[in-house]
């Protein structure tokens, strides 16, 4: 290092200042720095910010209500003040598309959080303790992998009908945790064999302390990556279930439902289908892009 500095004397002033924070950075600090330089992250981040704003304060963007419908306007195209036209019931498609964001965001965020906690916890216990606990959990994951999730949703949610998002969220957590648990298990097993865990054990740390202080911080990165990418697919799954008629129920406004009702009549009025479908696709796209950017930042092999 001093060699290099001597060869480039004009850099002497700048180099130590630049090098110092570089050295002190942890994996997380490094990841944040990489993310802030990634255009994919910035674009998807902006889109998601916009989406969140729409989801929490749809009134900022429209003064119309998604329930204010007039059958006289049924299936009409765009009109002054109604840029996206009207749907079958004569409701404003623009307002319904904006108000539909809330359900998607709620489902995506809560399912991801639930799956992250449940899958992460079960996967960590399996990876850490091994033995029969691990075999049991692996078999349970196999069983859940055998049942396609759309099919499970069709069976369970066709019976539980509620006007809230919670049954859908609960079902998706119950059926969505196994892939996350697999990733967490693998990650914990890798970390468990490292020297610092052995050292902590030798110093007499208990299982709880080893797990919380040593394993979790070092094993959590892959789980975060998989969960972030999965967020987009959860939103897509919710729309699929709503499309099949077993997901969110009216009066909750959701893109999946609007697409489902529009699909029956889209030959005469494709605009009813295109706007909610476009909004849904853009949302899923931004979350998947965010996940990819996070993976790029957290996985050193990808750089």
């Amino acid at each position, binding site marked *: 290092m001093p060699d290099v500095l001597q060869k480039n004397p004009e850099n002497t002033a700048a180099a130590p200042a630049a090098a110092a924070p570089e050295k002190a950075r942890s994996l997380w600090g490094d990841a944040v720095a990489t993310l802030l330089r990634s255009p994919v992250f910035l674009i998807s981040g902006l889109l998601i910010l916009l989406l969140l704003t729409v989801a929490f304060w749809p009134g900022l963007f429209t003064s119309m209500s998604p329930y204010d419908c007039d059958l006289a306007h049924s299936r009409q195209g765009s009109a002054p003040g109604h840029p996206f036209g009207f749907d079958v019931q004569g409701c404003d498609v623009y307002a319904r598309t904006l108000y539909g964001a809330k359900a998607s965001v709620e489902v995506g965020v809560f399912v991801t959080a639930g799956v992250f906690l449940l899958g992460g916890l079960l996967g960590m216990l399996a990876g850490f303790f091994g033995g029969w606990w691990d075999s049991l959990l692996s078999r349970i994951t196999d069983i859940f992998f055998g*049942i396609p999730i759309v099919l499970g949703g069709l069976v369970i949610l066709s019976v539980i009908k509620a006007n809230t998002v919670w049954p859908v969220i609960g079902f998706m957590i119950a059926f969505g945790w196994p892939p996350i648990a697999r990733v967490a298990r693998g990650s914990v097993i890798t970390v468990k064999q490292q020297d610092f865990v052995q050292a902590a054990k030798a110093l007499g740390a208990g299982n709880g302390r080893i797990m919380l202080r040593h394993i979790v911080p070092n094993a959590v990165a892959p789980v975060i990556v998989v969960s972030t990418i999965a967020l987009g697919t959860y939103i897509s799954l919710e729309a699929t279930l709503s499309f099949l008629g077993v997901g969110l129920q009216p009066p909750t406004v959701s893109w999946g439902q609007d697409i489902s009702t529009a699909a029956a009549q889209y030959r005469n009025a494709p605009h009813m289908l295109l706007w909610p479908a476009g909004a849904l696709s853009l949302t899923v796209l931004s979350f998947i892009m965010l996940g*990819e950017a996070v993976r790029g930042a957290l996985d050193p092999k990808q750089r």
Partner: protein
Amino acid sequence: MGRYVIRRLLQMVPVFLGTTFLIFAMVHVLGDPVAAMFGDRTPDPATAAAIRHDLGLDLPLWQQYLNYLGDIVQGDFGKAFNGQPVTELMGTAFPVTLKLTLVAIVFEAVIGVALGMISGLRPGGFADNGALAFTLLIISVPTFVTGYLLQYLLGVKWGVINVSVSSETGIGELLIPGLVVAGVSLAYVTRLTRTSVAENMRTDYLRTAVAKGLPRRRVVGVHLMRNSLIPVVTFVGADIGSLMAGAIITERIFNIHGVGFQLYNGVLRQNVQTVVGFVTVLVLVFLLANLLVDLLYAVLDPRIRYA
């Protein structure tokens, strides 16, 4: 090899039992099949009890499950509400979905591997970035949106395909639905192939193959392909089961009377026997496909030998 297959078959038993019991319990606990038979009307309690007794529904759940297992071992999957044996429904539905799945797998394997090879051979190139954007788009747009979009553009606007598939369901009619079913998996296959090819490009054996003057076709076609396709084969194999189930949505859009159609109707009408029977077969297909994939490993990768 023989012992390995037997061990794997034995390992499948608990998973098969667990999955079928789970779906059996879900269908039974959540809905009363006898009430469903009467539709919206309330059945006479005595009649309902008699039907329940006839069907063995008054027994505890585990006993019902054992009876069911005993029946299916003898090839009896019970009857749908209209008295039609479930096996008969399967006989008409499974060939259709099998055709659809095969079309999807061919698309997935051919287009996915080709795109993945092209982008993996020149990482960072124009084709690579194009393929990356394309796969991202495919993964993001939900299947039912892609389905309706293609149906609208090709079927309604340009009239290239029929909007709904006829009852003969020829392969030609299934091309576009098959492409829709394949969609997301196709994108994953592309990405998987790309990563795998790009990784293997840097290996010693590939450098040796190039250095000893082998023609490029042989280097890529034999040395690179064979090693890069191992993870792809796993993915495609494991995907067969989910493709068949994923057909629920596509079959609904294109009006194809396959497994997804029967399952959807079965669930809506709480036709317990149909749902449980179809899912049982789907689970078997899924498990056997996974076994086949593991056996294919040994063919593709000489380092793997099953004792």
